[in-house]
């Protein structure tokens, strides 16, 4: 045990004396959370819009009031003629124009239907799309309020409720995502690099010739990273909770246990990478290309898995990060217990066993 503690102490020396690894360990998580939390967002806030109201009746006024009251839009100006729309867009300030047709209220009364046109600047397609959706929901909201007052309205009324994230905050998506990326990066990449570094320097040989058993060597190398990853997970979840108001509906204990499980999965993957690569460069390339890109692209962190082509969806199943993101979201947002995420948990356990098994097999082959 004393030998083991000495080993861990040495490992911490390595980490704390290397500015690069320090940055990856502590600078990166905070920078990423802040970046994703504040800058990279697909929410809209205070988007400048213009209104062209041909009818100017009570009905349109009500809707315009609603739009003005919402935090998403800021009505920059009101346009009088259709021709002015184009030039407004060209100025670049206005992102959308709402066009109410003539006799809006009257048509709604007599024909049960009136038209409002939402014209958006689609040079930025995501924003345009979001604006269209947001305005639509405001109209729907207005409509449904009316229909409860006047019972004579017929037709289908859509009432959508956004569960678990009613304000559609993108932070709720990014916190689990960033946590996954960081834990993967720290656990898999940093351990694989630190193990291959010993191989490269020749110190691994010295360690293997020493009375330390191979599993003690590996355990000693990964233990500090378990510790640091746990700290990272705590930092990320706290930032999500305190700065961005991300709820933790489920059990914190369960979240902690699942996070440690994922950390171990990533570590075993890191160990596996270190058994197949002989230099730090190789380990880094494999980690970056083989892990980081799939984690970011195929895990459902940024791009929804359901809209990927089938082969990609199949591949995404082999990525541990995908399952961990599901687990974290389920616990934090839906507040579910273990019984709902049993499948995902077992998949991670299975993957961990597989990676450790492969690593032992590779190690044995080298001895033979």
């Amino acid at each position, binding site marked *: 045990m004393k*030998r083991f503690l*000495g*080993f861990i*102490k*040495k490992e911490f020396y390595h980490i704390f*004396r*290397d500015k690069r690894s320090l940055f990856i360990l502590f600078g990166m998580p905070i920078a990423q959370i802040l970046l994703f939390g504040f800058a990279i967002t697909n929410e809209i806030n205070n988007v400048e819009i213009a209104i062209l109201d041909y009818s100017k009746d009570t009905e349109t006024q009500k809707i315009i009031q609603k739009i003005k009251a919402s935090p998403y839009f800021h009505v920059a100006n009101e346009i009088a003629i259709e021709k002015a729309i184009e030039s407004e867009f060209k100025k670049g300030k206005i992102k959308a124009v709402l066009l109410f047709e003539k006799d809006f209220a009257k048509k709604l009364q007599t024909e049960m239907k009136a038209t409002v046109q939402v014209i958006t600047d689609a040079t930025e397609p995501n924003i345009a799309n979001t604006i269209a959706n947001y305005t639509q929901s405001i109209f729907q909201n207005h409509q449904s309020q009316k229909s409860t007052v006047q019972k004579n309205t017929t037709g289908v009324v859509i009432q959508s409720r956004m569960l678990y994230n009613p304000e559609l905050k993108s932070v709720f998506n990014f916190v689990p995502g960033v946590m996954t990326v960081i834990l993967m990066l720290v656990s898999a990449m940093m351990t694989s690099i630190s193990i291959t570094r010993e191989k490269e320097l020749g110190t691994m*040989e*010295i360690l293997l*010739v020493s009375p330390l058993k191979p599993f003690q060597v590996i355990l000693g190398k990964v233990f500090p990273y378990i510790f640091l990853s746990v700290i990272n997970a705590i930092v990320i979840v706290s930032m999500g909770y305190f700065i961005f108001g991300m709820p933790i509906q489920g059990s914190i204990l369960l979240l902690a246990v699942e996070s440690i499980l994922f950390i171990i999965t990533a570590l075993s993957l890191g160990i596996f990478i270190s058994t197949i690569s002989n230099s730090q460069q190789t380990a880094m390339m494999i980690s970056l290309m083989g892990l980081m890109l799939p984690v970011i692209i195929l895990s459902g962190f940024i791009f929804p898995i359901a809209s990927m082509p089938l082969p990609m969806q199949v591949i995404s199943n082999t990525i541990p990060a995908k399952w961990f993101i599901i687990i974290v979201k389920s616990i934090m947002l839906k507040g579910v217990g273990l019984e709902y995420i049993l499948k995902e948990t077992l998949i991670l356990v299975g993957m961990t066993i597989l990676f450790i098994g492969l690593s032992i097999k590779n190690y044995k082959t080298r001895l033979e």
Partner: protein
Amino acid sequence: MNNLSEKIIVVENLTKQFGHFTAVKGINFHVNKGEIFGFLGANGAGKTTAMKMLIGISNPTNGRANVAGFDVHTQSEKVKQNIGYMSQKFSMYDDLTVKENITFFGGIYGLSRKQINSKTEVLIQTLQLGDIAQKKVGDLPLGWKQKLAFSVAMLHEPKIVFLDEPTGGVDPITRRQFWEMIYAEAHKGTTIFVTTHYMDEAEYCDRVSIMVDGVIEALDTPKNLKNQFQVSTMNEVFLKLARNIE
């Protein structure tokens, strides 16, 4: 010094195969306690492979080897506790100070804090390290590092120390100093098992084996070998042997 009755390494029919390639072809030899044993051979002759089996980090395909009274295959843990090892690559941690390196390597061999402290003192004295002890190993010149690495390999007072081309890349003066350290250890009764490329170093050994293509072609004292091949230097012995094989 050489107690011929006490054999500390006994190798019988030791074989190592990688697929169809046989790197070590059933070699037999022994090393006496307290002797400096030179293990020579050209690159690819199989000497590193053989050495890896002796230090317990590679399993023999066939045959057996007994090191310090323990079987390398079945009792490798016991073997490891009794041997020291220094490899051709310089193997200490550059980002740790001299003292931290000593503490770490002492620690993994299970030395107590008290033992480590007294050993460190002695080392700093004998190597005249002084202030350098607080410096990071990466800032030391190569010669210092090699001497330090050797001292660290001797920290737990092993019965045998294996040196894999310990003087690669250092200047002649440091090499000379290094061999003085080896002699000093051998005087204390430690067995030295050394591989080298430098044939002048082979002259310093008590006995020398020369490996060619996985087989030990010659094994004797440097003097006897030179007589046997009727030449004046070990270099010529080596060349003659290699030429005869071809």
